[in-house]
């Protein structure tokens, strides 16, 4: 049979130049953030004209369809204690954290799905998503801290006045109270919500630690037992993930628009995370390859990653279209309000359409041919487009619900995104440099070396 191919051991070196570049990126982010904050503080309160009309138009539309549905009104007027610039900062912090948390979670999800499906081709690239997953604990801590910092501005349902008799009482949100506050009464402390957040991150992290431990033990001791152990762990993780990913999407994103609901939403967020995660894995693999690492990864493996991105860009579009079309077609005011907010207001409206171009049209056309998927250059072109595109996707999921017509996209948002990106890469690359870049005893490695499509 096949002659044994010896695999040179590789170790990623996180060089000072790379580190310096990332710190420069971080600094640029901080400068942009400060600049953005400064500008937003100065102009706050003056720029209500542009968006105001659109919101009115949207509200009229809703009102004409069904008067009873326009009960979102009190959100805009009720509690304006926090300055607009600060709300903007909170929004972008929360949104970026949800986005980057997804990259970490998808790192783990990618590995587990490879184990569960007995995939052979990916044996050489698994250490990259493993490193990405090291972001999970940081994302979890940030999520918890940010929640306590920002919840009154981001989550409308945290206001206790909604649950008490009075002018602000909201019968719909009051009904939802157990989902957030159980076993306590509505408007107190959302113990159920917080417990879910802690449990999800805790369990994900636990699985990461177990799977990583087995992967690293396999490097030293060889044998197929670690692979089998990880397969079992992965299967259990995937069951947990199937439920937790949807609930997490309801908790962290959908409940921002507290009145609105969509059964698809959990899978929509997952689809967006998943394709972004795939793009990030591919981008890191492609960059490592350009830097001379990952010698065993050739154009066949890149082809597979490219196919994954291509296919799941279409999958995301499918989920997007299904959700949008059904709400558009049935035209029920409680549901359409979500899209009206996003189509009629600036800057959400241009992002709404740009989203489809960046996340569907461009990846579809650029990755359609076989050659495009096999070349580093095209992959390095398409993956950043997708990552930026889905960042916009999350922007549009989170911001309109918090900021209404006051939302902005400027230095502040870009600055925070750059800070997150720099820190994320610092953590991920540090983690990558600490373990061998290739699992030399992976039982599928031989198959992966001979992979040819």
């Amino acid at each position: 049979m096949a002659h044994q191919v010896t695999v040179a051991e590789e170790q990623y070196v996180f060089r000072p130049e790379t580190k310096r570049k990332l710190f420069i990126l971080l600094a640029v982010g901080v400068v942009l953030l400060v600049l953005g904050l400064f500008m937003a503080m100065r102009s706050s309160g003056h720029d209500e004209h542009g968006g105001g009309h659109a919101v009115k138009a949207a509200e009229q539309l809703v009102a004409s369809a069904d008067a009873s549905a326009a009960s979102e009104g009190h959100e805009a007027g009720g509690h304006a204690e926090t300055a607009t610039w600060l709300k903007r900062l909170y929004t972008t912090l929360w949104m970026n954290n949800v986005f980057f948390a997804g990259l970490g979670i998808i790192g783990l999800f990618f590995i587990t799905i490879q184990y569960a499906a007995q995939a052979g081709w990916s044996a050489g690239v698994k250490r990259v998503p493993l490193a990405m997953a090291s972001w999970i604990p940081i994302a979890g801590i940030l999520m918890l801290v940010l929640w306590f910092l920002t919840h009154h501005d981001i989550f409308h349902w945290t206001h206790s006045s909604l649950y008490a008799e009075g002018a602000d009482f909201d019968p719909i949100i009051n009904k939802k109270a157990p989902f957030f506050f159980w076993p306590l009464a509505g408007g107190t402390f959302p113990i159920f919500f917080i417990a879910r957040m802690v449990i999800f991150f805790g369990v994900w992290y636990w699985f990461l630690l177990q799977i990583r431990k087995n992967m690293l033990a396999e490097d030293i001791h060889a044998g197929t037992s670690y692979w089998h152990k990880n397969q079992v762990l992965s299967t259990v993780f995937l069951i947990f993930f199937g439920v937790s990913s949807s609930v997490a999407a309801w908790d962290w994103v959908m409940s921002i628009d507290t009145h609105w609901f969509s059964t698809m939403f959990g899978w929509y967020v997952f689809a967006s995370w998943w394709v972004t995660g795939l793009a990030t894995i591919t981008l890191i693999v492609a960059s490592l390859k350009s830097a001379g690492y990952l010698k065993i990864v050739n154009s066949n493996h890149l082809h597979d990653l490219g196919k994954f991105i291509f296919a799941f860009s279409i999958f995301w579009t499918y989920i997007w279209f299904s959700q949008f079309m059904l709400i558009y077609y049935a035209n029920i005011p409680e549901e359409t309000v979500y899209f009206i907010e996003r189509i009629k207001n600036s800057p959400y409206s241009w992002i709404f359409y740009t989203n489809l171009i960046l996340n569907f049209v461009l990846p579809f056309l650029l990755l359609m041919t076989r050659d495009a998927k096999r070349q580093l250059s095209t992959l390095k072109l398409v993956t950043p487009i997708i990552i930026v595109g889905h960042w916009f996707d999350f922007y549009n999921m989170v911001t309109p619900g918090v900021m209404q017509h006051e939302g902005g996209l400027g230095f502040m948002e870009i600055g925070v995104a750059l800070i997150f990106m720099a820190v994320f890469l610092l953590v991920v690359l540090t983690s990558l440099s600490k373990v061998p870049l290739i699992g030399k005893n992976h039982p599928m490695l031989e198959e992966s070396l001979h992979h040819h499509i």
Partner: protein
Amino acid sequence: MQVSSSIRDPLITGGKTVKDVSHDISRHVENKPANLWYLAMAISVSLLAYGLYCVWMVLWNGIGMWGLNKTVGWAWDITNFVWWVGIGHAGTLISAILLLFRQKWRMSINRAAEAMTIFAVICAASFPLIHMGRLWLGFYWALPLPNAFGSLWVNFNSPLLWDVFAISTYFTVSLVFWYIGLIPDFAVIRDRAVVQGNNLRAAIYNALSFGWQGGAKTWMRYESVALILAGLSTPLVLSVHTIVSMDFATSVIPGWHTTIFPPYFVAGAIFSGFAMVLTLLIVTRRVFKLEDYITIYHIELMNIIIIVTGSIVGIAYITELFIAWYSGVEYEGYAFYNRVSGPYAWAYWSMMTCNVISPQLFWVKKIRTSIVATFVLSIVVNIGMWFERFVIIVTSLHRDYVPSSWTMFHPTMYDIGEYLFTFGLFFTAFFLFAKFFPVINMAEVKSIVKSSSEKTNQDASH
């Protein structure tokens, strides 16, 4: 060079060679069928004949022969339609999506699964066609032709019209895909007929094979065609049940209008399709002695797909229930309360038991590698999936916005008769297929004999 990791289980057992593959699979086409086959055929054809009588009565007297009423305007017909379309998803899934994912185990089962798909889609299509009442005017209502009073066109905004396009495209493309796969195998039978001196059979199978020769250039183009057809069929499979789900989800009926329907219907379709593939293949492998090609390992892998899709469907059920409560919409809330505890609660709980709970038994390796358990559970799953559609359709309709019109649905013998008609049609077609066509894709299996059979794996592990 293909390399298979030593931790993979063999896909072909019994130390088969390439020559054995031709022989084992072609001989059923060449030999006279067994008595069991005649018996099965007789039962199917009599079922079909009785069904045809019921169809005739409905066409002659109108669809008042069914148990539909003013409140429940869709019941068994659409339930059966969706059920059959769902079953018709596994074949193309196996041949297209599993091809793209390079799952080699699909090679032993794709031929029969695709045949099943095609017959299931024909069965499915019969329900909306008969529901038209005047079947002979169907083309005129469903195709973009101007009407007699001017150029009033069909309504492209209607999901029912999307269905026409989706089902006919799916049928056509699946048929083409299946046929493309059959071409090299027809040539095998032709050449064996030449050797055996059966000129008639050689001529027939040569015509069927389009004069296939198997040159490297043709194989190259052929593989390219297969890959692109797979690439086209993958979104096509998803689109078909998506569009079927939109028949319901675009409406404003509580219980029907929910955004998760498209992917959830697709998952359910794959779930029921795999169950039907298992039901058929467990019998086929036994009758045709194909245990070395359709191994326990194949059955186990299919059962794993059933766990996965069954669990996805389970998550979707729970999501629906949760959002019905979370939304705070009282109609939505009532629709689900009525499902769980109303007069059709027995259907809902049958669905839950069959679809969500019973597949979880497959987590036990003993059960998922047991032929008997798999056979029983595969039928249970399809009963459950029938109830799912019944629950969605009838339970959502029978208590509408006007309580004075609340009623129940009672099927007549013609509702039942048409369901039997499709069973007759399906099994007649399947038995004919099993007799006259090679039930396993020989060319594909031959290509993995070397890398994935038991014998070579032992060689590799020394």
